[in-house]
């Protein structure tokens, strides 16, 4: 089923939001000539038209609220509804970001407490909540690395080392920050190849950016040695917190030797992904990097909270506001509800669930690695009979009522299938999903056509992406 676009419901003379005007002001005399709008082609609708259109659109979507969403690396856990209730309190929604500190103590307290809680979880002594998303957090971390080396007169340090299993945002952020990307191959067991690392580090090394557990779902047991090697040449370590859901209460990035940590509140701390944002990507740093954080940071003096702008070596700002406040608020709710013990249980269960799936599917699919995984497991669709590929498995899963795992990532695994069940799924759901995967594996032998044709139970079938990119239609044609 596809729907008309909103523009096709437009009917002349309809409208819903109205603000009466007196017409006393003659704008023609006021504004520069040629700066007044001549026409608008926005649709004309009543409220009920709008409600029905978007309600029907929503029904074409799959979300965590609808079913199992094992999208690896994205931590699609259940998002508690109380998050939404608190984030819609008018005391939090109706306050301007430049309200004087004295009368916005509620917002500042939430931010301060969240900074402190994230510090407890990661071990990092100082936090900024400004970055709007994970990639923005990466970029901020890199600017801090740059500033640190500049302050120490080490402007020649212009290389950032990244494992080949890294998220695509890592090298893109490194490039944006003006560093050179040095990619290193992973070793046979999926960890950082220590010999390779020793070969590439030099006086030019500004830092290393790494996810641990990495995108293969593996905890790199050599992390302390890695940190030493990088620190010995004067480099800093940036922790990509995409996979923090695996280690809360078990170990902390600070203790692993990281200087900078970015987190994804929308992954680990249950704020809804929103169809692709808004997220929030706070940064934690060690003592020596505090003065380089973006401004403002929230501080507490006595019982009062303040925005602090005078950080001596601050990198400036990476977002116009103090960050995505309502996302922070949801994370604050979640962390406070679960408590430290609850968070530990989250990680333990996330790891349990992923290992359970890995173990149960091992007889049917090749594993990327023959090790216990952390919060996600990576399988491979390579070598399946009848020309069946990972893509076909993913599409067949849609027919069976699941969202597909992340596919073809990490790039270093052929035909990768990356499954992250999270801790909020019960055993029955996991068992049913495992059954579905086994069924698909059997269909690859016996009934490959059903996989190649999949999906057939979805609002649309496979879409022509090649033509979409070759002859792009990026807006409704009638209003061109």
């Amino acid at each position: 089923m596809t729907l008309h676009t909103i523009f096709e419901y437009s009917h002349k003379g309809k409208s819903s939001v109205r603000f009466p005007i007196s017409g006393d002001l003659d704008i023609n005399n006021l504004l520069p000539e040629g700066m007044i709008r001549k026409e608008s082609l926005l649709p004309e609708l009543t409220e009920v038209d709008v409600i029905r259109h978007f309600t029907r659109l929503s029904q074409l979507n799959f979300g965590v609220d609808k079913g199992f969403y094992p999208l690896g690396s994205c931590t699609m856990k259940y998002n508690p509804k109380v998050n939404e209730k608190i984030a819609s309190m008018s005391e939090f929604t109706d306050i301007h970001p430049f309200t004087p500190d004295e009368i916005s103590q509620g917002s500042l307290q939430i931010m301060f407490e969240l900074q402190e809680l994230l510090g407890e979880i990661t071990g990092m002594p100082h936090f900024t909540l400004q970055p709007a998303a994970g990639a923005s957090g990466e970029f901020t971390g890199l600017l801090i690395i740059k500033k640190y080396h500049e302050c120490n007169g080490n402007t020649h340090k212009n290389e950032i080392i990244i494992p080949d299993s890294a998220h695509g945002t890592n090298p893109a952020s490194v490039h944006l920050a003006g560093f050179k990307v040095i990619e290193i191959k992973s070793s046979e067991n999926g960890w950082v190849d220590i010999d390779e690392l020793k070969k590439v580090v030099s006086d030019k090394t500004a830092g290393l950016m790494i996810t641990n557990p990495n995108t293969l779902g593996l905890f790199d047991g050599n992390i302390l040695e890695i940190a030493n090697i990088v620190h010995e040449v004067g480099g800093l370590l940036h922790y990509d917190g995409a996979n923090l859901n695996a280690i809360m209460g078990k170990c902390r990035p600070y203790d692993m030797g990281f200087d900078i940590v970015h987190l994804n509140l929308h992954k680990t701390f249950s704020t809804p992904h929103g169809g692709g944002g808004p997220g929030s990507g706070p940064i934690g740093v060690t003592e020596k990097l505090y003065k380089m954080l973006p401004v403002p940071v929230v501080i507490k003096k006595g019982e009062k909270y303040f925005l602090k702008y005078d950080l001596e070596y601050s990198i400036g700002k990476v977002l116009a506001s103090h960050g995505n406040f309502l996302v922070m608020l949801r994370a604050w709710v979640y962390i406070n509800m679960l408590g430290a013990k609850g968070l530990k249980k989250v990680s333990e269960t996330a790891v349990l669930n992923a290992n359970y799936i890995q173990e149960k599917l091992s007889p049917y699919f090749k594993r990327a690695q023959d090790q216990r995984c952390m919060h996600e497991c990576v399988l491979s669709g390579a070598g399946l009979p009848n020309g069946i590929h990972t893509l076909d498995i993913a599409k067949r899963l849609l027919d069976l009522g699941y969202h597909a795992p992340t596919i073809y990532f990490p790039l270093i695994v052929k035909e990768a299938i990356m499954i992250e069940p999270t801790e909020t799924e019960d055993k029955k759901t996991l068992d049913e999903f495992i059954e579905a995967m086994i069924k698909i594996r059997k269909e690859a032998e016996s009934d490959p056509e059903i996989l190649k044709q999949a999906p057939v139970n979805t609002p649309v079938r496979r879409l022509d992406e090649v033509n979409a990119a070759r002859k792009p239609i990026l807006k409704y044609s009638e209003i061109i």
Partner: protein
Amino acid sequence: MTFIPISDNDRKEMLKDIGVASIDELFEVIPEKIRLKDFNSFEGCNENNIIRKAKKISIKNREAAESICFAGAGYYDHFVPAAIDSLVSRGEFSTAYTPYQPEVSQGTLQAIFEYQSMICELTGMEVANASMYDGATALAEAILLSLRSTRKQKILISSTVNPVYRQVINSYLSGQSIEIIDIPEENGCINIRFIEENANSETACIVVQIPNFYGIVENGLDIRKAIPDKVDYIVCADPNSLGILEAPGKYGADIVVGDCQTLGIPLSFGGPSNGYFAVNSKHMRKMPGRVVGKTVDLDGKTGYVLTLQAREQHIRREKATSNICSNQQLAALRNLIYLSLAGRKGLKEISYSCMENSHYLAEKISSINGFSLRYDAPFYKEFIIECPVDASKLIMNIFDKYMIIAGIPLSRFNKEDRKGLLIAVTEKRSKQDMNLLVDALKEWEEK
């Protein structure tokens, strides 16, 4: 409180199936030296108690949240229709992620397509992306796009651009070796002669904001005329103003960006909002961010997909046009619903009403002895009042007495500017609200 549905019995069975004796065995790979012995430094609580805790904290915001708000500087107290909250709270929208599987994400994808269409219509541009983090990062990315596509290293930025945006631009550009030149202002407007004298074949782009930081509607047409061919004209525009102001594409802009908080997003202490990003077609394949295109499925049925992905980080890695991964989808959805509800008539009325209100208030205030309009130039919904006293003191005093936030003291952005007060007036303000502020200010009238 927990959201974990695995029982003790399930856990035992699962551990047995995995072939380990305990959960801890799954974590043995972590070096013993850094394993946390205990982690219990903060307690959890149930849903009832978290609501009570949040309410207790929220009360500290209450007076400011309920006050009559004349603060602006990039965030404005516009009306947010109830239908928006109702629709975006649907779990099908809010608990989905980036539409990697288009067959089960048509809701999000079609919404993005419609959003792109409306942004194109509002700005008069040919192509729009699915949104950026906010207006400031969108503007920074616009400059990066221009640097990439022109391969030149000089940019000219108007000093009438929001100073906070300017800070973000500086951070974003700190990794590039480029020359940034400030275009000076003249009576609150950009000095057009300076562009004529300084823009040349080395220049990548000219960056302006309309309405500018002081609320003034710059003459976009005259600026265009001063810009040499092949130099990009980047306009940052409040989309809410485009109900009444000409679409920047119509006066020759090459890249148009801005912050969409003014389209159906509550103030929220500044976030989340989203930025829009629109370009003419020559920039299409170099622009940053997600883009959705219309296509057909195997049966020929219309559908939507993420497209032009060869620009993006998950394919191109360090060669990508940006490091951005997601957009700000749920915020962009608010914009789309807002524009659908307002429509052509509603948006025009809202824009017009902002202008009417702000001009009413500006006239009233400037007739008080000691208060005057700093600039004599056409403005939209925001203006600067020169106060007889320190503006930040005046603001707290008026707040305490009247529950009005009278504006933003410019000392927030420039410490020397003690007496400037930036006042924003939206369609939400009634005559009564405005008269109350006038009465409050009269207490400082110079006799």
